[in-house]
């Protein structure tokens, strides 16, 4: 039953296909939590746009709402989602290393 997990990895790569969302993830990777307003102050986009990106990252499981006092929702990184995507990449790299090694042998023995 690998399909649902893989669909989740797809959602992660989909979320990370956008440069603004990658910047949000990088910012969160430094630790701590952020609000849409706080991020908008650092990025050249509106608070509304940041809130939309945070919602998409939330849907992909890359961020989670943090328990914190205050009026505005605070988000923190969910490292597990990045780990799954990294796992997909490592599997794909290992598979291609194997295939390219066999390709080299198949071509050079001719």
């Amino acid at each position, binding site marked *: 039953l690998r399909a649902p997990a893989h*669909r989740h990895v797809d959602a992660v790569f989909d979320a990370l296909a956008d440069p603004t969302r990658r910047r949000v*993830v990088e910012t969160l990777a430094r630790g701590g939590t952020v609000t849409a307003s706080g991020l908008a102050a650092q990025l050249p986009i509106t608070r509304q746009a940041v809130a939309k990106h945070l919602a998409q990252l939330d849907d992909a499981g890359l961020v989670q709402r943090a328990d914190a006092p205050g009026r505005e929702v605070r988000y923190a990184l969910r490292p597990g989602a990045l780990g799954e995507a*990294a796992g997909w990449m490592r599997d794909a790299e290992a598979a291609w290393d194997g295939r390219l090694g066999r390709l080299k042998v198949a071509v050079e023995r001719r």
Partner: protein
Amino acid sequence: MKLRDETPKQADEKTPWVERETMIEASPEEVWEALTDEDRLEEWMAPEVDLDPVEGGGIAVRDGDDQRSGKVETLEENERFGFTWSRPGEGESFVEFMIEALPGGSRVTVVETPLHSAATNTAAGSTMAFGWGPRLLRLSHTLRFALVA
């Protein structure tokens, strides 16, 4: 052997999620045959490979229970061979081989990038990850240690 101009280094922004390469002591023509002939593909890719080597042609790769199928996207003789593939019920990836002539052989680079229905469905690769593959691996690694510490 014909020497081509050094292709301009791709900007970091164009790096796909997965990129691997190997040096092969053979001409690009010999490599091309091994990449695009279904009998040759069965020597290294998987025990069973069906390929219709035309743009839009089908590709099917079977290794026991592991089955993938897709469609040929790019076919530039002796230089570039790209296709999409997916396992049943899973997301599609775009795979592309690039062959570069070097003194004494060829450099073969393969890239693989997950594609997404949510983004554009047009040109394969339009949803490439723009330099973030190695970054994601480093981040994931750093975070794991941060959590353990």
